């Protein structure tokens, strides 16, 4: 029986079994970055470190080009990629800017434009 078609959500690719399989090596490498010594080894020699984790060519290329959408396409999960982003000096807002083709200031401004504070307190 063919698999049912995937749910289409604009600009969103839910991280499912297909992506989890495709991205395993990349995500495993990023998981190793929980340890500072591993982050330092990666920063010192990215290609050797990626080879140790058997990254695919697509994954290596996306990492070397800092191509976040390419890393997602290659199966990267954003919670794991966030650990790589930290090494590269990028926070999640900088990642957001890179993925949406905006400057960091534009990305932040778009969030601030939705600013709201709503409070309810029982006295």
């Amino acid at each position, binding site marked *: 029986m063919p698999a049912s078609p995937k749910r289409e959500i604009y600009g*969103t690719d839910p991280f499912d079994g297909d992506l989890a399989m495709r991205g395993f090596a990349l995500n*495993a490498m990023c*998981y190793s970055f929980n340890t500072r010594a591993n982050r330092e080894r990666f920063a010192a020699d990215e290609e050797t470190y990626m080879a140790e984790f058997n990254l695919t060519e697509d994954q290596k290329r996306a990492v070397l080009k800092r191509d976040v959408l390419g890393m997602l396409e290659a199966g990267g999960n954003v919670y794991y990629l966030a650990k790589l982003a*930290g090494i590269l000096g990028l926070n999640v807002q900088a990642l957001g800017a890179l993925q949406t083709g905006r400057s960091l200031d534009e990305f932040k401004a778009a969030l601030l434009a939705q600013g709201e504070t*709503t409070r309810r307190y029982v006295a």
Partner: protein
Amino acid sequence: MSQVCGGIFTSHVPGIGNAIARGLQQEPYWKPFFDGFNPVHQWLAREQPDVAVVFYNDHGLNFFLDKMPTFAIGAASEYRHEDEGWGIAFQRPFIGHPALSWHIIEEVVESEFDPVTCQSMVVDHAVAVPYELCWPGTDPFPVRLVPIAINTVQHPLPSPKRCLAFGRAVGRALKSWKGGEKIVVFGTGGLSHQLEGRRAGFINKDYDHFCLDNIGPNPEALLGHSSLDIVELAGSQGVEILNWIAARGALTGDVVELASNYHVPISNTAAATVLFENRELVPA
């Protein structure tokens, strides 16, 4: 008899932990979020709970994708936060409550749930940030921890319906616990946000208000959407509302909202903090 005295539901953005580490709580960007904890601090000082049962999701600190449980219950005597890749590790340990953990495990399996049990685990910002928000400073945390992790990372995720039922099973376990402690339930994460893809930065205030208005009085209203519906409505990480839904299920008494604070944006997230009192229903 133990007593579930209430619930604290809050966002757990890592940037909040960074702001705490750098002492930015009173900066204009952060203050509207941190001020939402003033009533929580007053309530905690008054209630002085002994135990915290925390529904959260792990973001790749304890669990990797090689083994990814849908529901996991900690049963360790101590838990620690560790470096998650950006160099912050909160130092205060989280003292566990293995006897209560095993009671919950026994009871939820009796209710036909099948959790993974963890006698050794580390907890990430989804536990550490809410703890730091509730009990700032350097004193040892005054509560013992039972962490309950829900998979909100790798699809298929459990349905909202399943999460509410799971939370209710935990709530029944808490009610039947003979330990006599006062228990507070946490649900962490959310509200709407999306970190990845061309829709990064997505926020949906209408859906957030729908959740805030219903999670207390009418949590069944949140069951009308599937987990993928919630991804579409709240963003791929907004689906962390599943932790809130499960935590709400664990409050089995009369649930009264004492405070609610919704603030956009914190980093890429619509942040919220809600405090509920749980008044045990007295049998007629």
